[in-house]
Every structure is written in structure tokens, then in C-alpha cells.
């Protein structure tokens, strides 16, 4: 995907706007969630694999229809939580036992019940940070530029009330004319090519 995009940028300078040989993909716009869902099933059955849907709110049914792999978020957060737990406990343990031992009312240096609170708080803190940073990283954000915004209807309404489906040019079965024809047959309110 990246090689194709950088190729395209190379000849962007020479070819006037609207005459790109390379495109990001073909996009269909749908007015309702049901139409998008039906289209997502159809595009998958037609054998396309590099397909993405864009919705103004989360839709689990579309995730399933496009067979998006399970999110890795739970694993990321679990690792974050374990690291936080160890950090919290070891911070309390090493400082109170080795670096700065104090006898407080005859309690053992390793008074672990008292260390549960900092341990717990660090677990939550690290897990929450890894949830947010992990989500941003797994989504490839922040992304200042993305070709889909070149479609005016997308930039206008994708974040509000319209549903979009894109067959990407990197799909092995991708053919510009064929993709156009196929998406036009799915009852969209519009089909457009996404320029790079």
C-alpha cells in the first residue's frame, strides 16, 4: 500500500488534476445503515478483501460483515496493567525495604497490605494509558492526511449521517471499471473514485 502511494506522489507533479492513473480506491455512499450492511456483505461475497467501511458511529454488524480481525486492545491493556502492577508494587517495595527503610510502629519493612493501594492505582493508570495510546497507535493515528477526505461528500457527511464503503486499489482483485460497476449495483446514493 505504501509503495503504491509513494509511486503516485512521484507522478502527481506531472499529471494535471483529475487525470491520475493511480487512485486510492472506489467509494460508494449509502444513506442508511441497512444499505451499508447489505453492501458490506455483498462486497465480501464478491471476493474483495481490501475493503473498508466508514460510519458515523460504531456498528458491530459491519465489523462482522467485513470480517475485521478481533481487536488486539485487550492484550495491550492486559500488558499495560501487569507492567503497572509490578511498577507500583516494586516502587513501594524497593523504596520502603532497601532505599529508605523506616520502622513505623513495628511494622515489617515489606508491609505489603499497605502497598496494595499504590499498586492498584498504578495498575489502573498504566492500563488506562495503554488503552488510549494503544487505540491511537493501532488505528495509525494521528494521521494528518488521508485520501478519503478528497471526496467532498465524505468530508462533508461521513462524520455525521452518511455511510461509506471503499474498495481499495491495493485489493488483488481490484479493477477500476469493475469496482465502479460493482458498487453502482449495490443501491448507493453515489459512487466516486478516491484520489490519492
Amino acid at each position: 500500500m505504501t509503495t503504491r502511494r509513494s509511486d503516485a506522489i512521484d507522478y502527481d507533479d506531472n499529471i494535471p488534476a483529475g487525470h491520475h492513473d493511480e487512485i486510492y480506491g472506489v467509494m460508494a455512499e449509502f444513506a442508511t445503515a441497512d444499505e451499508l450492511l447489505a453492501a458490506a456483505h455483498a462486497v465480501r461475497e464478491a471476493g474483495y478483501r481490501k475493503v473498508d467501511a466508514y460510519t458515523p458511529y460504531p456498528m458491530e454488524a459491519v465489523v462482522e460483515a467485513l470480517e475485521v480481525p478481533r481487536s488486539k486492545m485487550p492484550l495491550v491493556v492486559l500488558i499495560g496493567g501487569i507492567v503497572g502492577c509490578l511498577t507500583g508494587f516494586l516502587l513501594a517495595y524497593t523504596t520502603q525495604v532497601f532505599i529508605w527503610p523506616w520502622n513505623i510502629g513495628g511494622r515489617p519493612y515489606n508491609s505489603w497490605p499497605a502497598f496494595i493501594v499504590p499498586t492498584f492505582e498504578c495498575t489502573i493508570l498504566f492500563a488506562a494509558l495503554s488503552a488510549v495510546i494503544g487505540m491511537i497507535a493501532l488505528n495509525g493515528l494521528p494521521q494528518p492526511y488521508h485520501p478519503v477526505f478528497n471526496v467532498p461528500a465524505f468530508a462533508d457527511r461521513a462524520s455525521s449521517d452518511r455511510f461509506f464503503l471503499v474498495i481499495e486499489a491495493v485489493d488483488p482483485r481490484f479493477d477500476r471499471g469493475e469496482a465502479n460497476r460493482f458498487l453502482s449495483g449495490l443501491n448507493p446514493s453515489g459512487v466516486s473514485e478516491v484520489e490519492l
Partner: protein
Amino acid sequence: MATLDLDRRGLGGIAPPPEEVVLAPGHTPATITDKITAIVNGRTPRWWYIAFGLSLLVLGMFTTAVGWLFWKGVGIWGINIPNGWGFAIINFVWWIGIGHAGTLISAILLLLRQDWRTSINRLAEAMTLGAVACAGMFPILHLGRPWLAYWLLPYPNTMGLWPQFRSPLIFDVFAVSTYATVSLLFWYTGLVPDLGTMRDRAKSRVSRVVYGFLSLGWRGSIRHWNNYESAYLLLAGLATPLVLSVHTVVSFDFSIGIVPGWHSTIFPPYFVAGAIFDGFAMVLTLLLPLRAAFGLQDMVTERHLQAMAKVMLATGLIVFYGYLIEIFFAWYSASNYEWFMMRNRIGGPYKYFWLALILCNGLIPQLLWKKSIRANVVALWLISMVINAGMWLERFVIIITSLHREFLPSEWGMYRGTLWDWATFIGTLGIFMTLMMLFVRFLPMIAMSEMRTLTPGSGSHGAAEEHA
């Protein structure tokens, strides 16, 4: 009541009556976007300038009071020996408690799939952040040498000092800073898709760039939503035990000490219930005027008000039970000091504070049993103000009635807040209101992407047709 609801939801297939809807009929994803972005993109209403100006004035009072505090020291406050914890700690506990409702609404009610949380969670989370910002200031101002507050953090230093991890005061540092961070992360994560909408709807280039920058280039890809939903749910799962831990840890500040009236195992649950009680009162205090000002009755419906009033009633009863069982414990403990503390709390020099507390938190909220009162916006707002005051009194009573009569009569002494105590306390209301005013003006105050899932035909959980 519960069986009736079950009938409507699952068995009978009867459409819910109008007062039960969480979103007025006729809304589509587009109308939700239009309505909520218009609040930010439209002309600034005149009342906003007045409210913001007033908030800034009160904020000015805070900076004056704190400036004088930094110049003179904590001697300008009413604290003394034995009343070392005066307004600063009362206000700290009050504010941090208020924050709890925001997390409860956004995290716990999400896990419980309560769809009425959707239109109020953004505002409630913003309220949490404002409240935690106010709360966090008080322990630092109370330090006496606030410029050394960073000594509380664990970092290697030339003095060879480390925080004492057995101390509840250090627990507090960890709990409150984690709470502030996680609340901010949760709020921001929820905002990202809506910031994308704001970017696409921006009127000027500057706002498009700013919202675009904050939205991280969000484009609503289904792969993004997949990770996003997972992350959001996990954050909710993490915030749930966190919010319960925070007020528990705050209550440890008291219950780990041996002072009569503090040394009690009832404190953690009773503090958490009080926090939610007060937090919901503060949400209503803010929400009801904003709902009227922005005409949000179609999104914040009577169902929301009824539900919030019921949560207040339930948590209020837990708190009231706490007050009564404290009296029982004091007597049953057979400790002279505990029993004296309780008799002194009820009949001593601060008896009117205790009576006002019982009136505000115990008796007046019982009006919420009546459905017509829960539906009456003015009555609900007044009751929530009474609860806000009552919960402040609760912290005053807990702290002062225990401290002013400790074990030995030689260490007895009265406490009263000075002008500077009041200026600092009321001043934090200025910080809070300033933050809230900026929030409603510059950010979408209702979670648009979540509201869209409530529209018919959205094909998502919580859509109206699935319940009907």
C-alpha cells in the same frame, strides 16, 4: 415497577410511553449532528457572556485569596490546633466526591447498558474534570509550603527522601492523580469522533485546524471503531473500580486515624455513596439550567431526570443509613470517647450543623419518592442544591466535630472559617464554572456519535426499535 419495565422491554412488545424515551422521536443522525454542533458553531448567546463574566469574577476572588495565602501563609485561615483540617480538607473531600458521578455515569452505567447515560455522560465527565481540578488544589494549598508539593511524588532526589507508602496521605496522591488522568483520558477518548465531526462542520479555518488536530485525523473507519469500542469498554472497566477506590482512599485519610468519629470501617462505602449522591446533585445543578438554555429537552428527557433523581434517592438513603448506623456504632462500641463524640456532635456546640445536615441529606431528599416532584424541574434543581449544601455540611461535621473535642479537654478548641476560607472555597466555584462555561461553548456537550446509535434504524445496540 421493575416487572412493569420488563413487560415493556422484553415481553409485551408495547411501545414505551413518551416519558420513558431517552431521545425524542423524529431524531436522525443528521438532526443530532446539526443540533449539537449548532450549540458550538452558532452565535454566542448573551447569557453565556454574563455567566462567563460572573465565573471569571469569582475566579478572580480565588486568585486573590490564594495570592494572599501564598504571601502570608495558612495563618489567614481559621485552622488551629486541634482543628488542623479546616475548610481545605472539607472542600477537598466535597469536590472529589462531586467528580464521582461523572465516572459513575460514563463508566458504570455503560457497563450496565443503561442507555439513558448517553446524553449526559459528556457533560458529567467534564464536570468530573472540573471538580477534580478544584479538589486537587486544596491539599496543596493546605501544605503550608505549597511550592514543595512535588515532594509528594516518588522521584530520586539529592535529599535521599521517598514518600512513605504506608501513609493514606500518599495513597491519596496516587489515587487522586490516577483518577484525574484516567478521567481525562476517558473524556478525551469519548470526544475524538465528535471532534472529527466538529472539524468537518467547522466554520473557520482556525477552528477546522484546531478540531482537526485534536481529532487526530479520525475518519470513522470500521477498523478504527473496532479498536475504539474495545478501548472504550476497557477504559470503562478500569474506571469502575478506580472510582470506587478513590473515595475509599479518601475515607482512609480519616478511618486509619484513631480520632473518635473517624476510626470506623463504615467510612469507605458510606463515603462512596455520599460521593455519588452529591455528584448526581451537581450534575442536575448544572444540567437543568443548560438544558433549558440550549433547549435540550428532546435529548435530556424526563426519563433522564427521573433516573438521576432515583439514583440520588437511593444513594441518599445509603448515606442516611450511614448517619444512623454511626450513632449506633458509637453507642455499641462502649468507648467513652466515641459515645461522647456522638453526643457532642448531636447536642454540642455544632449541633445546628448536624441538624442541618440531617435535614438536607436525610429528610428533604425523601421528597424524591414522589414522581411529580422528580418530574418538576424547579423542585429537582432546588433539591439538588440542598444536597450539594448538605454534603458540604457532612464533611464539615465529620472533620470539625471530631477534631474540636479530641481525647483530652486540654486540647479542645472551636473552629470557624475566616473570610479567606470562604473566599477560597467560593473561589473554586469560579474555577469550576469557568471551566464548565468554556466546555459548553467550545466542545460538543453531548456525545454525538453515541447519540446516533439511539436513533431508529441505526442498527446498533440501544436503538429505539430494539426496545419497542
